[in-house]
């Protein structure tokens, strides 16, 4: 980075706004950089080999101009955007590309990606759609294949100690993120949704140790600064990810404070630690399949609709309680089926908790954001 190094939130804002920059620098220094789709590929495997894992995201500011020639418009617009900016060389510094069968959109995009965007090392991770024990066993085997493929590419084996160490460092990151989430419990929260988003995306573009230093700086800064937030209604976001502060700014300038987000750039990758098991792959497989709670995975269900909802969404009740949530925004990126299909049940569940839900299916485009302002403002007026 440039001469005088910024720290804390300022550093997070930099990393957020020029996302590939740190990875490009590290590549210059000889490090290998791997891009990965969604929050299911185990980044611990990459960290254990000193590879920098970089999360592949789209760009809401960039109109989709190339991807539509390759991916149909019925596909999730986030996936199409990610592929579009991939074709425009946003990710041309990757040494490896890890696709995953997370949802149908991510899978098709990954296959097209390997065909048209050439990366030295490619791997497609098969992730089962259930979380039964046999599925976990199967998934563990897939992770082992992934590990072998990466080891072969780097020309070095991962020792059990190195993997355990990587797990410990990522667990540390998860714990720090949860500490930061705690600072959103006061009213008003000590950190805004936009600042939080900058920090979380920054973490996904840098090595884990740098991320942990950043988190410690941010936590200290947020604790010590005077609270800059205004008191507003407290919002939980559930659903498709948000990866642009233009969106969170719009929400927070419409009379709402974002206090917790159950999304793939929110709590999901960070909420549970990986258990330290004798064979580290056991803990890793269990964690990703059972504890990363994207509805792309079908979970054990109860004998009735109510019990089923309770088993699947009980954690949201906890979020609502401890973060003192006033209302819920169900964010659906257009054609994000896994979240779109859950809307009726999620509305029912929150209604049962007495929480109003605002459902918006949006086009993943900053140009189309302003028309949503009236909905957020009216929602704030409803719950305020």
């Amino acid at each position, binding site marked *: 980075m440039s001469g005088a190094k910024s720290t804390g939130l300022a550093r997070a804002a930099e990393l957020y706004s020029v996302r590939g920059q740190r990875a490009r620098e590290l590549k210059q220094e000889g490090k290998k950089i791997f891009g990965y789709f969604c929050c299911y590929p185990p980044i611990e495997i990459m960290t254990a080999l000193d590879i920098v894992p970089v999360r592949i995201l789209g760009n809401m500011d960039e109109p989709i101009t190339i991807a539509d020639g390759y991916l149909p418009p019925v596909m999730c617009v986030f996936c199409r955007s990610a592929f579009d900016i991939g074709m425009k060389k946003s990710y041309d510094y990757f040494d490896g590309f890890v696709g995953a069968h997370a949802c149908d959109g991510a899978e098709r995009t990954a296959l097209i990606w390997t065909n048209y965007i050439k990366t030295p090392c490619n791997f497609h991770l098969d992730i089962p759609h259930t979380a039964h024990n046999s599925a976990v066993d199967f998934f563990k085997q897939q992770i082992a294949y992934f590990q072998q493929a990466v080891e072969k590419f780097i020309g070095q084996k991962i020792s059990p100690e190195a993997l355990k160490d990587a797990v410990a460092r990522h667990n540390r990151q998860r714990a720090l993120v949860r500490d930061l989430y705690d600072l959103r419990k006061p009213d008003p929260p000590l950190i805004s949704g936009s600042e939080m988003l900058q920090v979380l995306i920054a973490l996904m573009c840098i090595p884990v140790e740098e991320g942990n230093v950043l988190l410690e700086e941010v936590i200290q800064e947020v604790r010590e600064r005077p609270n800059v937030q205004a008191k507003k209604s407290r919002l939980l976001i559930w659903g498709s990810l948000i990866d642009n502060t233009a969106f969170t700014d719009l929400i927070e300038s419409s009379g709402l404070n974002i206090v917790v987000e159950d999304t793939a750039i929110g709590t999901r990758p960070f909420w549970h630690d990986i258990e330290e098991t004798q064979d580290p792959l056991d803990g890793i497989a269990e964690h990703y399949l059972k504890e990363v709670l994207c509805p792309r995975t079908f979970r054990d269900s109860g004998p009735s609709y109510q019990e089923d909802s309770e088993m699947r969404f009980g954690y949201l009740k906890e979020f609502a309680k401890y973060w003192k949530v006033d209302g819920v925004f169900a964010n659906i990126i257009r054609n994000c089926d896994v979240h779109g299909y859950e809307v009726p049940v999620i509305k029912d569940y929150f209604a049962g908790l007495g929480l*109003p839900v605002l459902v918006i299916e949006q086009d993943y485009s900053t140009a189309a954001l302003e*028309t949503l302002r*009236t*909905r957020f*403002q*009216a929602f704030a*007026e*409803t719950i305020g």
Partner: protein
Amino acid sequence: MFFAGLDIGSTITKVVIKNEKKICATVIKPTGAEHRRLAHKVMEDALSKAGVPFEDVDYIIATGYGRINVPFADRQVTEITCHMRGVNWLFPAVKTIIDIGGQDSKGIKVENGKLVNFIMNDKCAAGTGRFLEIIAGVLGVKLEEIGELSLKSTRPSDISNMCTVFAEQEALLRLSEGTPVEDILAGIHKANASRIHSMVKKIKIEPEVAITGGGAKNRGLCKALEEKVGFPVVVPPEPLITGALGAALIAGEQIAKIDKEELQERQKKRRLEAVTFFDDESTKAR
């Protein structure tokens, strides 16, 4: 004490000036591309109609999609809350409001004078005034006459497509087949009502139901909606002003919450002029 509500809609701008007892003046004017420069002119009209000097207005609320362009407003409130308040004042028994505006349509739920839920369509012209404008143009009938004309139909034609562009094609096709204009219009109104109804149904339509906005001035559309809803609906005497009226009512409530000194301070700072954050030359509509 006087308070004002300005509702700058996509198509029409409405102003209501009120005191504690009654509505003192209402103004309804086309919004136009120059609305950023003209909000204060419409306000001036309303003030002179009411015979109230600007300095005597204690609180002003702006609403509608142009609400950010009213620099002399004390506060902005969405048109959803404002319509709710306006209708609730006129018809306290109303629980469901269907607002059919120029560029969007909305469903609004009221409980004990509070906004509890809403739904809106602002991505597509289907189910909005714009749709009716386009069809009126295609059929060569004045917009304000299409509703009445549609009521003369004995055999409403089927219009299956609700995309404005394709519905326009269908209407043309029916014309070429020799279908009477009133039957095509009846079909169009039925299709439009069905589209609006299926959207508002999502937030549960409970009686009483009120229809507001420009769409409420179209008797054919109201009748088609009434048939869909299954029971009679109420239409305010001037369905265009419920948003501005609600804004004025909320303005009245706000005054009670602010102490006198702050109110005077606000009044002193207030200037009846156009927004200044636009570069006047480059943003002028041509």
